[in-house]
């Protein structure tokens, strides 16, 4: 008999494929993760063209907008994808099958990475064609390192939000979309940290994503090699946050199953 207690790549892949089925058949998801980001890119592209013709600032803004989409799409996939299952009363069906919560989370993270890579490529092509901004100017390796750290940042925020949804039910649904935008100014995604009030700068520096956006802007203004050292320290901080997020999620998930909320989530 096969051992179903160990981590299964096959079950992870099944959920990834399931996510692809859902995405291709959902107009809402198309709008959330493709249409709105595309409109965002055009909007900010036009705004930056209007307010800072010829300056480096319009490139900063477009760079921030593109990198920010990594955060939103990955977090969306970790958190909001589960809401579709809850609203369809299908979540418990999934967890009555022999899948672990870790496999489920890994699958959603993997699906988020696939979607992000695809959409980012399209958005980057659009900015190149319409606004003469090439995302690859930051360097391919740097781009991969930035993307990796932003994706991890999005994952741990998404995991904590998912924990709250499991624990407190669909009345927390709004946070699955809304909370991430709090981090848009806090991580200085579209502008240098120095623009923030001093007290907010201190808070901003607590988030790994802030360093990614700062580093990314540096690569546009000054010629830099590969920012391995900065990546490394940001990565370490991200991993520490991710571990903390895993602990918080574990507690919230346990409480959700203790209180019966996890099963009730499916009953609307």
């Amino acid at each position: 008999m096969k051992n179903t207690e160990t981590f299964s790549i096959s079950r992870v892949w099944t959920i990834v494929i399931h996510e692809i089925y859902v995405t291709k058949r959902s107009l809402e998801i198309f709008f959330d993760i493709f249409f709105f980001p595309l409109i965002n890119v055009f909007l900010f592209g036009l705004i930056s063209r209007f307010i800072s013709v010829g300056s480096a600032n319009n490139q900063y803004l477009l760079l921030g907008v593109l990198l920010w989409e990594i955060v939103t799409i990955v977090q969306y996939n970790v958190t909001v994808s589960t809401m579709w299952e809850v609203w369809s009363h299908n979540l418990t069906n999934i967890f009555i099958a022999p899948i672990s919560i870790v496999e489920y989370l890994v699958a959603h993270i993997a699906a988020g990475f696939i979607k992000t890579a695809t959409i980012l490529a399209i958005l980057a092509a659009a900015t190149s064609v319409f606004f003469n901004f090439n995302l690859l100017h930051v360097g391919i390796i740097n781009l991969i390192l930035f993307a990796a750290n932003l994706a991890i940042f999005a994952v741990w925020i998404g995991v904590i939000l998912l924990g709250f949804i499991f624990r407190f039910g669909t009345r927390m649904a709004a946070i699955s979309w809304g909370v991430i935008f709090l981090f848009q100014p806090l991580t200085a995604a579209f502008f240098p940290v120095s623009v923030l009030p001093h007290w907010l700068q201190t808070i901003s520096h607590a988030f790994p994503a802030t360093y990614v956006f700062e580093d990314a802007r540096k690569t546009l203004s000054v010629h830099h090699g590969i920012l391995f050292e900065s990546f490394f320290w940001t990565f370490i901080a991200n991993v520490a946050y991710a571990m903390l997020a895993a602990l918080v999620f574990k507690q919230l998930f346990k409480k959700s199953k203790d209180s019966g909320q996890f099963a009730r989530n499916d009953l609307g």
Partner: protein
Amino acid sequence: MSELVLKVENLVKDYGAYRAVDSISFEIKKAEVLGLLGPNGAGKTTTIQMLTGITNLTSGKISYFGLDFNQHRRSSLQRINFTSAYNTLLGRITVKENLLTFAGLYGVKNRLSKIAELLEKFEISHLADQRYINLSAGERTRVNLAKSLLNDPELILMDEPTASLDPDIADKTLTWIEELRADRDLSILFTSHNMAEVERICDKVIFLEKGKIVSQGAPSDHTNKMNRVEVLLSYKGNREDLQKILESHKIAYDFPTDGTVRLETKKDKTAGVIALVVQAGFEIVDTEVKKPDLEQVFLEIARSNK
């Protein structure tokens, strides 16, 4: 001895100070169908949630196939399945995509042919490429049943599988369940509010009330425990005279039709009551003694605690 499929020992679930399930124990053997009955709030749903691992137990033990569910969660879930009128599949994707997902999660081999076989069995092959959300209640029930058989389970937990179905589809669904049981030696834990269904397919019935087991045994055991029968007499004679006699002996009665009286009495007094009517000079044309059915047992249990 029959192989034990599920063993529940002293299962308790507390929600704060409220005890939803109070130290219940029961077993299901191979090819056995157990009905879990009780009024709303009796603890049936909470019990099923604990049996499927989506709600944690406060105390007690659940074992599937002799293995502790707490320690062998996924290998246990691999051998069981679940279907409910209240849990639907994902509406926005097709029937086939839904079934492919679950086939993948259960590690089913030859997924497409297995799905085709099950869709054919439930006469829904034409729905394979339909979005689940567009299906009728009856079609959804059949898809849910197909999903619950993907992994060739040895035990299926069925939570009101026929709720909201019209009588014809409900009857067909029960026939499928009976066939499945016969073909596969399938064990089933079945909950329903329809007592006729329960009497039809369950070997054993457990009544839950306020989280406790108040009665368990074969459906006939439950009805035999009730020391009450209904006697329907077709008679010839004056209705008012009969009324006076019955009232003087404190026998509960009503007249469903002209010339017919329905009497309620204890089982061991049936002959005496009939004799009383005959001795009073009434001619008995027809007699029918009706034992209580499961519905009456259910109502008595539900009302006794109000």
